[in-house]
């Protein structure tokens, strides 16, 4: 019987290192493999993360935190789509043997088939690494954050506004082992850092609000003072908003706002399997079932959005700052407005004999297509609106990809090329495809703030989402549909 004290003395990682290194990750993988029964297809992930973060409200720091955690996930893939998963955050030998034992049991053929047998190895891809690491972020000390926050809140305090915000330094590592049904083995290791800072500045009576934020793999790329000043300036500029009629307006979407529409488009490139979901549920890029060809046809190769716009995913792009997971090659979703890639899961890729462009957790992307400054967009607008940010977006009609949501943290009326007044927020009802086919001007692609929840045990037993960084341009679009005014600032 294993002595638990020995285990802890010898095998417990030094969490003072903040994240697990490559050798520790591989040791854990080997330990799991020694217990797993010889079912061919298996995926092991050893993930670790550290975060140091500070939260403030009403110009005062409310709490500063330092957190580390580990996630060990064993996923076994069987024929006919049987898949089992066992997860722990304990890396002593006893726990690792236990989690492997659970995964062994769950492979019992008693469980019914879930999807067609792929006969396809879905994840034999290189894991990119090294493009998203910053020592500055990793070595961030609590005192440095405190000094920065004091600077961020000083101006708001002196001018009697209320600032709330969040500053985070983050590091994560992943050791990823896969073995396909033919016995091909791959072990990969990667690590990344990420930093984010955002601030919301409000008036004390709650009648105006401004927001700004940025995220990057490197804290050096985040100008906290500029974020604080931008949020404050927006709050000041948003004072005394007037109510104007809802309607269709020429609208300038700042990058944080336009990103919401691009995210919808990218999410929709995940092709749902017709075998699982039936005809008519293949999403907006599906055309339907072609009886002659005996296959499902899509809009691949057709123009779907403005011909100046291209959307790509490149894990090696440091401006995105994304972890290499799922570690695929660069993907071009849309090139010059033409749909060029639909992402699949393994089963569909097998049936269609396409590249296995799996979609899971591919939340990062970059949009290119122009270089027009926002100032020029404003100057060229006779009457329109400038939108800082959108919120609460949800579908109202999935088949036409019609969504609704609200503007927030700054909305301004533009008249004859200049911003003339702050405006009460609107609810909008619009389709990303309408928006992206009615583009007048396109700005330069810039990284925007886009944090994602990294850990969600309950929802899916999947603990670790990829860091989602997006780089998008501001857009000037025609006839954007604002349907009603709202009370919120």
């Amino acid at each position, binding site marked *: 019987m294993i002595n638990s004290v020995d285990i802890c003395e010898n095998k417990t990682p030094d969490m003072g290192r903040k994240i697990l290194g490559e050798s520790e990750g591989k040791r854990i993988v080997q330990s799991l493999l020694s217990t797993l029964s010889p079912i061919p297809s298996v995926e092991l992930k050893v993930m670790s993360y550290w975060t140091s973060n500070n939260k403030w409200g009403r110009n005062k720091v409310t709490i500063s935190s330092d957190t580390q955690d*580990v996630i060990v996930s064993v996923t076994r893939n069987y024929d006919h789509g049987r898949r089992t998963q066992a997860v722990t955050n304990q890396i002593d030998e006893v726990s690792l043997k236990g989690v492997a034992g659970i995964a062994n049991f769950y492979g019992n053929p008693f469980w019914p088939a879930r999807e067609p047998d792929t006969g396809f190895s879905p994840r034999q891809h290189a894991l990119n690494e090294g493009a998203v690491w910053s020592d500055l972020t990793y070595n961030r000390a609590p005192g440095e954050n405190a000094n920065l926050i004091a600077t961020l809140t000083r101006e708001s305090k002196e001018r009697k506004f209320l600032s709330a915000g969040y500053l985070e330094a983050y590091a994560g590592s992943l050791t990823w082992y896969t073995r396909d049904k033919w016995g091909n083995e791959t072990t990969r290791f990667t690590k990344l850092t990420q930093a984010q800072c955002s601030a919301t500045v409000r008036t004390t009576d709650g009648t105006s609000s401004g927001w700004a934020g940025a995220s990057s793999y490197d804290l050096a790329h985040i100008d906290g003072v500029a974020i604080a000043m931008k949020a404050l300036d927006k709050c000041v500029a948003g004072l005394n908003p007037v109510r104007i009629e809802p309607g269709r307006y020429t609208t300038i979407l700042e990058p944080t706002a336009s990103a919401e529409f691009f995210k919808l488009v990218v999410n929709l490139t995940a092709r749902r399997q017709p075998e699982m979901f039936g005809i008519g549920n293949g999403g907006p890029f599906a055309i339907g079932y072609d009886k002659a060809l005996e296959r499902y046809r899509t809009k691949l190769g057709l123009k779907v959005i403005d011909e100046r716009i291209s959307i790509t995913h490149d894990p090696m792009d440091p401006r995105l700052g994304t972890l290499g997971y799922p570690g695929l090659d660069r993907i071009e979703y849309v090139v010059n407005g033409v749909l060029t890639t639909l992402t699949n899961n393994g089963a569909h890729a097998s049936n269609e004999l396409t590249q296995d462009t799996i979609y899971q957790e591919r939340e990062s992307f970059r949009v290119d297509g122009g270089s027009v400054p926002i100032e020029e967009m404003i100057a060229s607008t006779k009457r329109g609106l400038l939108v800082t940010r959108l919120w609460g977006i949800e579908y109202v009609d999935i088949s036409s990809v019609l969504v609704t949501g609200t503007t927030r943290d700054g909305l301004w009326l533009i008249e004859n090329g200049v911003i003339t007044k702050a405006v009460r927020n609107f609810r909008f009802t619009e389709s990303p495809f309408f928006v992206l086919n009615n583009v007048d001007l396109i700005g330069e692609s810039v990284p925007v703030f886009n944090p994602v929840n990294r850990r969600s045990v309950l929802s899916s037993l999947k603990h670790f989402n990829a860091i989602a960084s997006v780089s998008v341009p501001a857009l000037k679009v025609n006839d954007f*549909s604002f349907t009603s005014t709202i009370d919120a600032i």
Partner: protein
Amino acid sequence: MMKISRRDVVKSGAGLLGTGVLGLTLGAQPVQFDSNSIVISTDFDIQDPAIREIASACIDTAISRGAKYCDVRMTFTKYLGVGAYAAPGLSETMELGVRALVDGYWGFASSPIWSREEAGRLGAAAYDQATANLIDGPRQIAFRSAAEESIGHWVMPVEQDPFRLNFNEVYDAINGIHQFISRLKHILDTNRKTVFQKQYRGFFSSDGHRQTQVLNRTFASLVLAFNNRETGDTGGFSVDSYRSSPGGLETLRDRPIREDIQKEYDEMIETWKLPMKPAEIGRFDAIVDQNGMAKLTSCSIGFATELDRALGFEANASGTSYIVDPASMLGTFVIGSSKINISANRSDLDGIATVAWDDEGVKPRRSQLIKNGILNEMQTTRELLDIDVNGDYSKEKYGELQGYSVSPTGIFAPVNYTPNLHLEGDASGPVSMNELRSGLDKGMELKQPHISLDYQQSTGFASGTAYEIKGGKRVSRLMNAGILFRSSEIWNNVVDLGGKETEMCISLNQKKGEPEGEAHHTVRAVPARIKDLTFIDITRKA
């Protein structure tokens, strides 16, 4: 390095090792296998003195360095996810979180390692995080003492513990429900979740708190997606009895789930028989069912009465509140008609947020958030109870402790999440939906609407299955109908509430904080008749 593993705890506690058929262990739990079954024993002893020692090591380190107060949360959480057609998944995690108060500043540190050495490191790290913010000197902070009932142990009742039952029995019970669904025509798909949780929680503080509890909970939801391929009719209804609750498998096996599925199925078939009309735009009196009223209660009252939101501490995260000056609005601000009484609790045995103590060591009490339509109490925590509108210390500003502080696991610092809520019925109100509907001569009805509010919880949007009502009966279904509303108006326009007989529990989740955490609560709600609701065509653009 000395570490307490779960197995050690079992050895010194219940001593159950060796009972397994095969003897593999997942941490402390003997996992018993035979060819086709699994039983995951869970006799983990959260009261073990070794666990207290770890907590003490955290506290001693922080206090010896100069912290005025320190508390520790230790969680060991097991999840067993059961898919309808896929194999199950098991997750188990351990967390240790330490919070220290130094000269008015909070520091927090957490990790997955339960050992004395790690406890010392976390105690020091929490202290260091707090002191790093001392650049402007010490400050006074509001932190109410929670002295009463500081030591105790509680186990949430469970009749059929899924972690003790043969797993095939668990699987059969869940799969049997889905087999029942698969025999119903026109159900294209189901969106379902069934995850069982067993969570051992320990809370320890430098004030002498030593509270341990075991939460046995089931997180479940079931939405039926209908598609009549012959007519093209579609729709979706949730089965509200298939919901998150305290307890184990009995919460799903002993409820009339199949009858409720059949009821929703029959209702959809009846709905399809009604003529389809375009959404009518304008103001109408309407019936909103329990599901809709529960969601409305949760977001427009529950979230809005969280004091941290109202004071702006969540302005950069989950949002703020239309209650902009809570101290002066208490007792005077009219939120709804005099019929509206909404209380909060964490003691309802049907409520998923129920606990014996919250994550600041407070025994939860019932609070009357809305009394006869007037704002009566805000939700607070020990941190926020004595705070003024400027965020400064102000003694006894918001009444008594409530126990609404939540840390989903020890990894997260605690914040105020909305507890279980109760929209109280009208003692003389209608005893059924039919009776409530029959009182409406001309109007609309919304069934199971999806509701979303802006980040200030002030302006809302809802859509769902909508009907036209004439002479107290559904006469047509409305295509793409939804409503727009203001929180301050919709509660004032409630003219009729269902009686106690119409109460139904709906479980909901809430995401909050930075970094974002998630917690759950249950709303016990009755249906309502609301006048002058603004109906729109949700697909109509400007």
